[in-house]
């Protein structure tokens, strides 16, 4: 072998040198493979761990902050909501259908590991433009995979987002968010404890799925062209996942589980070492008792296989018969593969021999960490408005904008997702945040994912703030109080250029915004190295947020409701074309979101909705106020007529973007009450609902949008591009 094994496995020489110091001898081959995976960026966050400490993670309602499989918050009446966002970017680029599907499966098991019933999914997607045949293929297959998995396991996919941009041509992003419901006092943790307690592996058999670095070992041991020893792509099996969900929830409800842990990246190695390290105990695992799908798997392969749809339960010996019986009833394989010991070591046997015997904490807590270079990127320069051509026909420009892939209706996507299963979906996809009833409660949840990636490219701190505020505004538009967040930081190579600085700045901006609205981050995920020699992605810190609505029946939608309702623009944001959808490029210098202003606007929304004043609400985001008005009109099947101050230029006024603006409607006689609630938050009555067109008067001129033409432009794009 020309290159040392540890390098083939992705360990640096320095990292490799640490191992004997930690364990007092040279590692065995399986141990080396385990270290290589546990010390990878994916498992150890070695480039981002320190920066993540900046996030606000506390709050009176936080039951579980970062550190477990998912975070959880108290939502009252003894119930907790678990939430987490996770990426499956690289697998989706290789095999989009299975990659995206297994991404959904993975996040669902993270929620399940808390003993929570998964009740909603969202997907946040970034792909190359629809002009690219490759991107169309990847996107179509990823959507199909997400739909297939979510639909089959019966968890509604209630929302998400997608952005098409050339910067994602080589590195698409597939992030998924899952929400779960669990009794606050019945939440499971992943920590192992109690010498003699048993580890039970439940679910699919273990094959050579997704064995990363370990394949190097396998091919070094065996002849390199040995076909069937090659690692295989993970194939999703949602039917087994559903049984696993039903079975684990039944076990949890019957109090048969002491701890529960999903098997994700690095498989059994990561699951078991984390359980041991969290509980400060050891685990003795017999690899011969792991149910295998293939013959002749090497110990290292069994230890790091990423076969899907598996969970690891901790069971006391007297409960074992009940556990096995339940698993049999669900037609799931279940095997006792190990026991808790007092040594603190991760011990594994194979064929009667000890092949691994190392402190579990060496794998988890002793992973290296790196300070990444924080070379600042160039400062953004404001857009010269003169350089942006004035559209000859504003009406035509408006129609064009409505049909752009990043603005156009996402019906083609969410129609392929069962967004109703469970019979709790109050506000379906198509508006701002989705709203779902919390089963058995009067309260409801609003859920969204958002990210301002172009803003982040130009100014990561401002973009970090904007990403949080966009999510919070979407939540607030339903009348819900922003309550908790999860995030997925998708970035390029942290060791190169300004990526480290961007990451730190984005985290700073997100944290500032989260603090401004008192929303804690309770879980999250980092995905780095999203770049090719040709392109790096925009910094894409996806924010997943939930909000709480006191009365499920009082949520607000984005559709115009009644003729003659007053249309009100709330908030102090100023329309600018910098980085806007109309500009279609990351150019200019978007304004730094104002912490106090955004927080005040969100507060006003919540109070106004709570007072029952709002008939509709829709924030101003991509495409500016013109798109906001058109979307509310299309959703309600009724037009409006509005007058706006002309501003610097008509196209900027119509299509310019910024945060801190929401268009609401109310009965005309509710205006005084709304004004009183708004207080210092800027409020402008701009028109009224009615008619079959959206008319906007700007100075002397009126721009008019025909609703039927708008509907065609808005609905056709994705369907036609992806036919």
């Amino acid at each position, binding site marked *: 072998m020309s290159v040392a094994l540890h390098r083939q496995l992705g360990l640096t020489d320095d990292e490799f040198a640490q191992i004997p110091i930690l364990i007092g001898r040279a590692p065995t081959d399986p141990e080396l493979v385990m270290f290589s995976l546990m010390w990878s960026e994916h498992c150890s966050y070695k480039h981002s761990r320190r920066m993540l400490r900046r996030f606000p993670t506390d709050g009176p309602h936080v039951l579980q902050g970062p550190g477990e499989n998912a975070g959880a918050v108290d939502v009252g009446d003894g119930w907790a909501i678990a939430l987490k966002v996770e990426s499956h970017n690289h697998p989706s680029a290789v095999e989009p259908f299975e990659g995206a599907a297994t991404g959904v499966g993975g996040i669902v098991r993270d929620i399940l590991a808390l003993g929570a019933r998964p009740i909603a999914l969202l997907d946040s997607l970034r792909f190359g433009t629809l002009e690219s045949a490759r991107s169309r293929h990847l996107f179509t297959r990823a959507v*199909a995979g997400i*739909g*297939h998995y979510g*639909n*089959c*396991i*019966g968890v509604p996919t209630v929302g998400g987002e997608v952005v098409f941009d050339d910067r994602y041509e080589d590195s698409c992003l597939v992030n998924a968010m899952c929400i779960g419901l669990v009794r606050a006092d019945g939440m499971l943790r992943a920590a192992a404890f109690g010498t003699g307690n048993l580890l039970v592996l439940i679910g699919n058999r273990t094959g050579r799925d997704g064995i990363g670095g370990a394949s190097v070992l396998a091919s070094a041991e065996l002849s390199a062209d040995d076909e069937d020893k090659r690692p295989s792509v993970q194939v999703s*099996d*949602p*039917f*087994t996942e*559903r*049984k696993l969900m*039903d079975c684990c929830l039944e076990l949890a409800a019957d109090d048969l589980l002491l701890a529960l842990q999903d098997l994700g990246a690095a498989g059994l190695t990561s699951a078991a070492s984390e359980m041991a390290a969290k509980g400060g105990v050891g685990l003795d695992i017999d690899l011969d008792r792991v149910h295998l799908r293939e013959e002749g798997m090497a110990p290292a392969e069994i230890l790091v296989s990423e076969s899907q749809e598996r969970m690891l339960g901790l069971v006391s010996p007297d409960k074992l018969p009940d556990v096995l019986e339940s698993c049999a009833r*669900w*037609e799931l394989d279940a095997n006792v593969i190990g026991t808790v010991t007092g040594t603190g070591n991760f011990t594994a046997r194979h064929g009667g021999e000890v092949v691994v015997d190392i402190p579990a904490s060496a794998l988890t807590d002793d992973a290296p960490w790196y300070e990444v270079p924080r070379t600042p990127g160039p400062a953004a320069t404001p857009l010269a408005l003169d350089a942006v051509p004035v559209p000859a026909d504003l009406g035509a420009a408006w129609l064009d904008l409505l049909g752009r892939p990043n603005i156009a209706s996402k019906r083609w996507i*969410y*129609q*392929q*997702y*069962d*967004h*109703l*299963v*469970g*019979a*709790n*979906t*109050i506000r379906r996809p198509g508006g701002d945040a989705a709203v779902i*009833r919390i089963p058995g409660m009067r309260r409801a949840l609003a859920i969204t994912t958002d990210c301002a990636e172009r803003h982040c490219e130009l100014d990561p701190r401002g973009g970090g703030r904007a990403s949080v505020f966009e999510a919070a505004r979407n939540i607030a538009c339903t009348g819900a109080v922003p309550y908790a967040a999860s995030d997925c930081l998708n970035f390029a190579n942290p060791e190169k250029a300004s990526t480290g600085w961007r990451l730190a700045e984005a985290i700073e901006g997100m944290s500032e915004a989260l603090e401004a609205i008192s929303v804690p981050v309770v879980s999250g995920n980092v995905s780095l190295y999203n770049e090719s020699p040709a392109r790096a992605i925009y910094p894409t810190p996806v924010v997943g947020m939930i909000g709480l609505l006191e009365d*499920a*029946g009082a949520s607000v939608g984005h559709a115009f409701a009644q003729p003659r309702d007053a249309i009100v623009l709330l908030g102090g944001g100023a329309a600018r074309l910098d980085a806007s959808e109309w500009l279609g490029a990351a150019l200019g210098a978007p304004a730094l979101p104002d912490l106090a202003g955004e927080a005040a606007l969100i507060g006003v929304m919540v109070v106004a909705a709570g007072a029952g004043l709002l008939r509709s609400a829709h924030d101003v985001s991509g495409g500016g106020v013109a798109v906001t008005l058109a979307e509310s009109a299309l959703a309600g099947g009724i037009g409006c007529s509005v007058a706006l101050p002309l501003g610097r230029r008509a196209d900027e006024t119509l299509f310019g973007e910024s945060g801190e603006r929401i268009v609401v409607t109310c009965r005309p006689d509710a205006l005084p009450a709304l004004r009183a609630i708004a207080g210092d938050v800027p409020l402008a009555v701009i028109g009224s609902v009615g008619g079959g067109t959206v008319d906007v008067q700007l100075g002397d001129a009126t721009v008019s949008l025909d609703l039927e033409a708008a509907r065609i432009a808005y609905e056709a794009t994705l369907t036609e591009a992806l036919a």
Partner: protein
Amino acid sequence: MIAVVRFPGSLDHDSAVRAVEAAGGTATYAWHADRALPAGTRAVVLPGGFSYGDHLRPGAIASRSPIMDAVRRHADAGGLVLGICNGFQVLCEAGLLPGVLRTNATTSFVCRQVELEVLDHDTPFTRDLGAGLSIPIKNHDGAWYGDPADARIVLSYGMENPLGSIASAAGVANAQGNVLGLMPHPEEAVDRLLGSTDGLGLFTALVRA
């Protein structure tokens, strides 16, 4: 008592129970491996989902499970059986309803609200329904295929026919009218909060049985 049959991979069983309760009845689960329906069963619901992962053909594996013999006996004795989505597929595969459900003409999963026409008011299920119902569909294999001359097409999608069913069929009954299968999900339309209560009538019919 209404029995809601649960197969591995059933998804809408809880919603079906809630719908029965919304209609003023009580429900209990029957397990696929059981050979008899729960004592006191007056009517049966086969809920939506992906029983056995929809592998091979949707509903095929579930239709051969032990509980289906008991469902058949219940139907033969004139008892009411309502199959929703996957339940409809199971009933067709079991031969309790004519035809079979095939992949949608779109070849994709379709989740959306549809407007249904009630074509046949002369079954125990449809006696009290209005002329039209607004209920969501959500399925991948919902195109009914069969001979309309041999089937009682009770519900139709009208002119729209979004899934490509023969005769635009959305719901089909057996000759006696006591077994009904439909692709739309009435259990998702029993609560004003979720947008429509048009599905409630089907559950009221079961509760009355």
